[in-house]
């Protein structure tokens, strides 16, 4: 019923000498929200950052195995990392709008990638992106004020708008709500629910309630291993593995 978008096969990852991921096999379905949960240091963020190769920036980081995006290995030598990242966008834990105007924040990447010329084309693109990130109404009258002047939740939605303006296939979210208040969080969650119609969303979250609320599938990681992966409803009512059960019921350590 769901076609697989990202397919990870026996992925191992080392930071220098220490192995951070011990052979992960997982398939992320297209246009669904997958939540990666697990205690800190379990490798979920590491895995997420593998998907758009943000780990390349870390010295001493080594990878084995395959990550297939629509069947193409993203770690193949001929792959251009920069182009890859236009297909796999990322939203970060702390909202990080550029110190530019709201308009420029969104227009920056499309301009660099030549997705739209300047003028009305770009205006349209920016508006669409902002609309899809459900922040258009709040910012349409102040497009040229700095993005950093927005509230935390608005900033995060601006970052999402910035990401979807490049038209990625997959959006990675690394604890997108951890710096936000509950109302801003609810707005982002509502937005994620909207966005999954078009994008494959993979998110890391520390809030199990959040994972339960918005994800279709949930993967539980522990100590660099994928312990359990399945439909969110199942994981949260009757997980198969004792470790998962212990983690989500708060019986850990």
């Amino acid at each position, binding site marked *: 019923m769901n076609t697989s978008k990202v397919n990870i096969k026996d992925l191992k990852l080392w930071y220098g000498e220490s192995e951070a991921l011990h052979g992960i096999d997982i398939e992320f379905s297209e246009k669904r929200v997958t939540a990666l949960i697990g205690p800190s240091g379990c490798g979920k963020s590491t895995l997420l950052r593998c998907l758009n190769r943000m780990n390349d920036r870390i010295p001493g980081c080594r990878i084995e195995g395959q990550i297939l*995006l*629509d069947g*193409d290995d*993203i770690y*193949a030598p*001929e*792959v*251009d990392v*920069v*182009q*890859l990242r*236009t*297909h796999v966008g990322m939203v970060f834990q702390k909202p990080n709008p550029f110190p530019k105007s709201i308009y420029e924040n969104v227009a920056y990447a499309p301009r*660099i*990638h*030549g997705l*739209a010329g300047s003028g009305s*084309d770009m205006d*349209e*693109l920016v508006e*669409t992106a902002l609309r899809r990130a459900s922040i258009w109404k709040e910012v349409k009258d102040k497009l040229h004020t700095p993005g950093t002047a927005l509230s935390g939740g608005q900033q995060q939605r601006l970052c999402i708008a910035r990401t979807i303006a490049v*038209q*990625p*296939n997959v959006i990675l979210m690394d604890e997108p709500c951890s710096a936000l208040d509950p109302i801003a969080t609810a707005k982002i969650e509502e937005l994620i629910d909207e966005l999954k119609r*078009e*994008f494959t969303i993979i998110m890391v979250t520390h809030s199990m309630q959040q994972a339960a609320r918005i994800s279709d599938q949930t993967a539980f990681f522990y100590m660099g291993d994928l312990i359990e992966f399945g439909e969110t409803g199942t994981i949260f009512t009757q997980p198969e593995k004792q470790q998962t059960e212990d983690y989500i019921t708060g019986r850990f350590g």
Partner: protein
Amino acid sequence: MNNSTQPNNFISDEKKLRQKRRERADSRFHWYGLTALGLALAFLVFFFVDIIGQAVPAFYQTEVKVNIHYVEAAKTNYNKAVDHKLRRVVSRAWLRTLPVYLKRHPELIGNNIKQWVPADSRVDQYIKQHNGHGLKSKYQRIVDAMAEEGRIRQVFNIRFFTSGDSKLPENAGIFSAAVGSIFTLLITMLIAVPIGVMTAIYLEEFSEDNHFTRIIEVNINNLAAIPSILYGLLGLAIFINFAGVPRSSALAGGLTLALMTLPIIIIATRAALQSVPSSIREAAFGLGASRWQTTWHHVLPLAMPGILTGSIIGLAQAMGETAPLLIVGMVAYVPDAPDNILEAATVLPAQIYTWAGESLRAYEERTAAAILVLLTVLLSLNGLAVYLRKHFERRW
């Protein structure tokens, strides 16, 4: 615009062209940085090679083996001690010491001794094959002949370190300048370090955040940026013209440099005090310690390495400074080392400046040599500071 996501083209040909251009721009940017760094470092290497290349010959002095006639007449006219044709070959500075020497050793009179004596600076330069040695061709032939007979050698130039400035290059050394530097630096240190550290402690630990404190803060930042030559003007106007400190004295120079170094030490000390986490202060206050006890027992010991490092760097900078000393007259010709801080003195950088202005070729290599000495001292001081910082560095 379309709402569908783009196809996966991260390995397709579609955008290859644009992509290629961006990749090239990317690597070009990387290269700019590397080139800039390379240029700066290449200059550093070129600079040191050049200075060392120029300086090394100055550490060697040419000596000639000549017959010295210890005759009575030499007591009054030292030129009589050597053969006429060798008068321009033997160092005049050495010859000038003969009459005194003879008076002390009258038993030598009447002897004719073949011995090694320092050569004239022109001969020295000629032997070292420097352009512009200034040796007349007549003497060149004599020297060449002597060289063939093995009557010319090069020895380590101990005089460079033991004598003061001289109008005769073969006799010019850095001793008096070094002593002047030490005097000046001592004064600078004794004034700038205590006042600087106390100011920093006051600002960091005792002052309330009021108008006056803020004025002092802005003021110190400004002082650090004021060109050093203006401190020279200050020294000239206040210390020399107003307070009557003798011109050219180590005291005038030291005071001027102290004022110049003050902001550096204050800023470094404040940084060191700031890096002591406030939790330590709170802990001490929590135990009922007074502000003074807290500072004296807890904060200062922890900030000490930073204060030391800052002071060393500030003093090193003062040691290399010339411009303000020019203004307070510390560039005078001072052949003898000063005995006290009120006597006319010169310092190493000023000596370098004076020598650099001399026209004789022999001074050029001595300048370079003095520079090498100065750089060695300064780099060692800075190295010491870096070592102290690394060694005592504390992570909170």
